[in-house]
């Protein structure tokens, strides 16, 4: 279900939080769908159960999931769009990418064209790669 990069410098619980958020935002995990239990996930991913518990707590705190006593964790129904923190991250990544593109010789016109093409594709609902 998830792929974690144990070689990444990012903490494992952070990776888990990001992955689950992504899956919720893109609708892979539907509202009120049950998340795998801490025990199952720990076995599947070979990750410390306390780390998974921590990731779930964080997701609950941010309102992505809710938990029912004795039943497990479920996806909240209120999540619709990436939150502000995620937008900031994307913005920073875009700025960096634009800078790199500009150094590598892409002109402003090239980039504008690319941007318009990409937007057109999204509006038509074509999958992006």
């Amino acid at each position: 279900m998830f792929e974690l990069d144990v070689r990444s410098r990012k903490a494992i619980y952070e990776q888990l939080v990001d992955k689950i958020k992504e899956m919720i935002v893109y609708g892979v995990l539907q509202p009120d769908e049950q998340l795998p239990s801490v025990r199952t996930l720990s076995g599947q991913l070979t990750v410390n159960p306390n780390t998974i518990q921590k990731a779930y707590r964080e997701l609950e705190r941010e309102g992505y999931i809710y938990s029912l006593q004795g039943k497990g964790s479920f996806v909240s129904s209120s999540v619709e769009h990436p939150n502000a923190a995620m937008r900031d991250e994307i913005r920073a990544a875009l700025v960096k990418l634009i800078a790199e593109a500009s150094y590598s010789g892409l002109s402003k016109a090239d980039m504008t064209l690319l941007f318009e093409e990409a937007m057109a594709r999204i509006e038509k609902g074509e999958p992006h790669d």
Partner: protein
Amino acid sequence: MIELNQVIKAFEQEKAVDGVTMQVHKGSIYGLLGSNGAGKTSLLKILAGIYRQDSGTVRIDGQEIYENMDLKGRTIFMADAPYFFPQSSIHQMAAFYRSVYPRWNEERFVQLGSVFKLDVKRKLHRMSKGMRRQAAVWLGLSCMPEVLLMDEPIDGLDPVMRQQIKNLLFQEAAERQVTILISSHNLREIEDLCDHVAIMHKGRIIVEKDLDDLKADTHKIQVAFRHPDHAKAMDEQVNILHEEQRGSVSLFIVKGNREVVTERFRAFDPYLLDVLPLTLEEIFIYEMEDAGYDIQPIVL
């Protein structure tokens, strides 16, 4: 729950454990890291009730472990080199463990047999180092311990077995709330196994923290300042563990909140600013350097 308070243990004049205070919560997997000869094994042996501390208190679930039969029956210590009786097989060792540990679970021993796939009739001294290690884990887990003390447990295991044993430990922690204390200098192993770590050096604990917090708290910053004076000015503003100059790019290892630190650097409007989290290995090396144990540039 394991609690140590100002524990000191000396051999002759040498203090192997020098005033250690730490807490390990129930169900936690705790990693004990340290330089060679830092006192990791001595500390584990005190916790196992093999050594008696010279001063300070050691409590496991509120009780003293030394000469405490009941508590020792619930505690398993796996030494760095597993010991078995001469000429014995797993079958014979299991009979011994059964007679000593009151919580021995035969059903579990049989279940675990499907994991380890070792011949119980074969003599242990004819097995490889890794196989003996597996046998020690097999026997240890069959005793249904509440506290598991492991000295270099992953040493000598192949990657498949390593994952297998990790999974077993995770299950123990999640399902039975076993408290697990692991010593190692293989940082990669600790990194994805433990939730808390302590770094020991010369008998003392120099860092003790939630592993994720430790990682979130230390940053590697690559920066190219517009003016060399800017680098000097940073000294007063942030907590710098390490500083290095590579051409026009400065490398800083900084402790503190990520946003705050980044903001401080950004204030000088540098040409380049990259903030990276550290691997546990890097944290270990820089913390050790701070404690006066660093890598000397050697040219032979």
